[in-house]
Structures are given as structure tokens and as C-alpha cells.
């Protein structure tokens, strides 16, 4: 049969953002694929060079609308590493509670989009409803719903609101109950299972070589989670086990994210219960010294890294952002080739694309 190229995107229900996937098909089988990104490039790395260190925090929030807090947290971590600022313990606990809530909210948003992609509209409604609980908690902490501007260099902007511990614990128990319900809903759906099991296999060696990180890597059987293996913040003091799955298909990626939400509930519970009293912010210097700072965190989508160069002034000389999805999507042809055109939605949806951070 004649081979032809098909453009899926930039405007396509599958893309969740603005990017293009060119697939070459032979009949219905994919023989080649070319992801194309860059439609949402805003030049954030250039933009921050004209801002002071504090003014950069809300810009890094805009890297990803789904998990903005992890990015501003990563930026503050990097700036603290550059300036040599030590964060008070209470702030570390508040940050961990907040980023784990953000992780649940982000995974729930992924699950909603994924369910809608695969024809399970009920899953979309349920997960979006329960995501609001964590959005509300984050709103109570920071004052806004999606772009929080909450972490600061040297701590967090405010202390937690009254009754935060009670609300967070309540949200965790509710979420754990609901997660079981979702698992019944999704695993019990014949259509969902048919479109997921044994689709989009990514071998362990390929995943490691292509720089895939986060849930897709752990779903390929590599037990690597920066929260455990290169711990930052107060993760060494918390008791948890990163989720892995040996299969490497779309179902494994779904399963890893579901298990991560249980883990996050566990972490939030420990963080709010162990939270010490004290200051939540120290004053950071206005100017950074000459040198470099590095921050690495486990973003909901993979490994987020920032490399910050200071030149002694009050503005960053260079900020390099490593977006996990930018690297993961370059591995997409490995997952797509050999499968049918109808599997593209499941495979690419299972990667949890976020174009804001991919294009920066």
C-alpha cells in the first residue's frame, strides 16, 4: 500500500496544547513519526534575563498550567543553591505538602484528559470534580487557583491557613477512597483496557538511552525517582516508596500515575503531621554571587532541572530549564512505530504532554 504522511495537529483533539505530530502510515500501520514542537515558544529563558530574581518566580509559574507550583519551587530551589540561602524547616514541610497536592492535581488533570481521549467521558467528569478539592486547598494557601506564585527564595510567601492540617488530612482520606473508585471504573472498562494493554511498548534500554524520565520511565521498570535517589528538601525524612511497573505499555504508565497519587496522599499526611512550628521565610539577598546554581526535582512529568548562572547583579545571567516532556516527546517515535493510527491517541495521551514547559 502507498505510504503517506498525516499531520495530527497543530489543531487536533489529541494534542492537548499546540503541537504537531506527523505520522507516516502504511495502510493503518505507523512506519515513521515526527513530533514538531515550538508553537508555544515564549522565550522564557530570554525573558528572565531582564527581570530581578524575585520577579522571575511568577514567570516560572507560567511554564506549566497543570503543575505550576513545582516549577516555581524548582526555581526557588535553584536560586537558593546559587545564593546559599538556607530555608527554615517549616517552609520545607509546607513546600512538600504543596507540591504533593500539586502532583495529585496534575495527575488528575492528566487522567481526566486521558479518559476523555479514550472515550470514557464519565472519567473526565469525576476526576475534574475531585481535582477541585486540591485546587481549593492550594488556593487557601496561596490565593490563586492555578498559577500560585507561592514559593519564595528563602521559604514560602505565607504561612498555611487556619485548619489546614484538618482540611489536608480530610482531602487525603477522601482522595484515597475515590482512587479506588477510579481504579474500578477504569480497570473495569473493556474499551479502556483494550486501548491500553500492550500498546506503545517502551523497552527499558530505550527509555534509559532516550532520556525519558518520570512516570514513563518508572513504567518501563526503572526504579528511579529523584525524591528517593537524589533527595532534596525534606524527602529523606518521609517514608514512601516510588511506584514502578515492569510492563512499559500505556497501561503501566496509567498504573504508575495512579500509584503515585496514593504515594502523594501518604506524603501530604506525613508532611502536615510532622510540620514544625517556626518561621516560614527568611530574607534572601537581592543580588546573587558570581557562580552557578543547580536544582533538580521530580516534577509530575519527569525530571525538572534548572541551571542558573549569576553574575553578581540582581538579575539572572542565564537560566536554563530542562523540561521533562521536551525530552520524552523526542522518544515518541520509538513508542509509535509499529502500532496502528488509532493507537496514537492512547500512546501520546499517556505521556501527559504539557506544551507550556516543552516550548518554554
Amino acid at each position: 500500500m502507498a505510504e503517506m504522511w498525516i499531520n495530527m495537529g497543530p489543531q487536533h483533539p489529541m494534542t492537548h496544547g499546540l503541537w504537531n505530530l506527523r505520522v507516516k502510515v502504511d495502510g493503518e500501520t505507523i512506519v515513521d513519526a515526527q513530533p514538531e514542537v515550538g508553537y508555544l515558544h515564549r522565550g522564557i529563558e530570554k525573558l528572565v534575563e531582564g527581570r530581578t530574581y524575585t520577579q522571575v518566580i511568577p514567570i516560572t509559574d507560567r511554564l506549566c498550567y497543570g503543575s505550576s507550583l513545582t516549577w516555581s519551587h524548582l526555581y526557588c530551589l535553584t536560586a537558593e543553591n546559587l545564593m546559599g540561602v538556607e530555608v527554615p524547616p517549616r517552609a520545607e514541610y509546607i513546600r512538600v505538602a504543596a507540591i504533593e497536592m500539586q502532583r495529585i492535581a496534575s495527575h488528575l488533570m492528566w487522567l481526566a484528559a486521558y479518559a476523555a481521549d479514550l472515550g470514557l467521558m464519565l472519567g473526565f467528569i469525576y476526576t475534574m470534580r475531585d481535582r477541585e478539592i486540591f485546587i481549593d486547598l492550594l488556593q487557601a494557601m496561596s490565593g490563586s487557583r492555578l498559577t500560585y506564585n507561592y514559593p519564595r527564595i528563602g521559604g514560602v510567601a505565607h504561612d498555611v491557613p487556619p485548619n489546614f492540617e484538618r482540611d489536608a488530612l480530610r482531602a487525603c482520606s477522601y482522595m484515597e477512597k475515590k482512587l479506588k473508585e477510579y481504579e474500578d471504573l477504569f480497570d473495569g472498562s473493556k474499551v479502556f483496557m483494550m486501548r491500553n494493554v500492550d500498546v506503545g511498548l517502551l523497552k527499558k534500554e530505550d527509555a534509559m538511552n532516550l532520556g525519558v524520565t518520570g512516570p514513563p520511565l518508572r513504567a518501563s521498570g526503572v526504579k528511579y525517582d529523584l525524591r528517593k535517589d537524589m533527595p532534596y528538601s525534606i524527602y529523606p525524612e518521609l517514608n514512601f516508596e516510588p511506584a514502578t511497573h515492569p510492563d512499559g505499555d500505556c497501561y503501566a504508565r496509567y498504573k504508575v500515575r495512579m500509584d503515585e497519587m496514593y504515594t502523594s496522599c501518604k506524603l501530604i499526611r506525613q508532611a502536615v503531621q510532622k510540620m514544625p512550628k517556626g518561621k516560614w521565610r527568611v530574607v534572601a539577598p537581592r543580588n546573587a554571587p558570581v557562580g552557578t546554581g543547580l536544582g533538580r526535582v521530580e516534577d509530575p512529568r519527569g525530571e525538572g532541572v534548572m541551571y542558573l548562572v549569576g553574575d553578581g547583579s540582581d538579575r539572572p545571567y542565564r537560566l536554563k530549564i530542562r523540561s521533562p516532556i521536551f525530552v520524552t516527546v523526542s522518544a515518541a517515535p520509538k513508542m509509535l512505530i509499529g502500532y496502528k493510527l488509532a493507537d496514537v491517541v492512547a500512546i501520546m495521551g499517556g505521556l501527559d504532554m504539557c506544551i507550556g514547559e516543552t516550548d518554554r
Partner: protein
Amino acid sequence: MAARGKGSPAEGMERALSKVDDVPEERVIRALLDNFPTAVTDFKKLSKGVVRARIERRDIHKACLFVRDTLGFEHLSMISAVEYDDRFEIVYHIASWSQRLLLELITSTPKDDPSVDSVSSIWGGANWQERESYDLMGIKFSNHPKLERILLPKDYLYHPLRKDFKGGD
């Protein structure tokens, strides 16, 4: 509070290598020094598990191959290009999952010839990151399979992250 806390980059920078080789960070430095005695120009232990080494650009491909195959650094985390007044620096952050180490490998190129060997044949994940550095900073990676612009349009004329490009603010 400008006081330097624990784990800040300044601490432990000037520490000399000890005789024992069971400190993983020092083992990496020693292996690099033994195998590239003329190319490695500088090394530091930045903090626990993080090592920085500077290497001449002619040996970057060989060094990366050595780092992956012999030292077991299986994950190329990030490639960054930084422009300074007199040079471009290309910074490779390479991680080892099993040993919990991060190697910051820095190579520099002169301003008038910003080119370096591609490492995308060693780590497939380098492919797009090198294209991004080419696109935004204008670093040419030789032997790259497809060195094209990735984020900006194909007919764009500038490399916007260079300091002489006045945009934005």
C-alpha cells in the same frame, strides 16, 4: 541572610583528593584524570553526589563514551549552552542512577567557532537538546543526525539567547 548554608556550592570546592578511592565522587574525578590527563583542566566536588569537571572540547565525545560505558552514567539529563564575554560554555549534566551521582561536564568553545562534537550517538536524549542549543544559542554540533531549528521557525535569522540579540525587555 546571605550566610552560606550546608550543601552550598562554595563548601568543599577546594578540598584536595584523598588517598581512598571509595568516595564515589572522588573515584569519578580520579578515573577522568587518569584517562584524560591532558584534557581535564579543572575539577571540583560541588556537594554530596555532584561533581564538576572541565574538559577540552576535542575530547568531549571520547569522554562521554567513557563516562557512559566505564563509569556507568546512563542518563544524560541536560545540555545547556551559556554565553560569556570570551567564550561559549556547553554544560552537560550526566546522572548515574545506580551510584546516585551527577557529573557536571563543562567544555568551552571560542566565540568565533562555536562548535562541538555531538553526543547524540551516545545518548539518544541528547538529540533534541542539541538542536535546542543550536536553535537558541547557535552552537553547531558536528556529526548531529539532523541539526535544524526546533522551537523557532525554520527561516528565522537569529539565535535569540545570545547577548547581542536585544529582545524582550
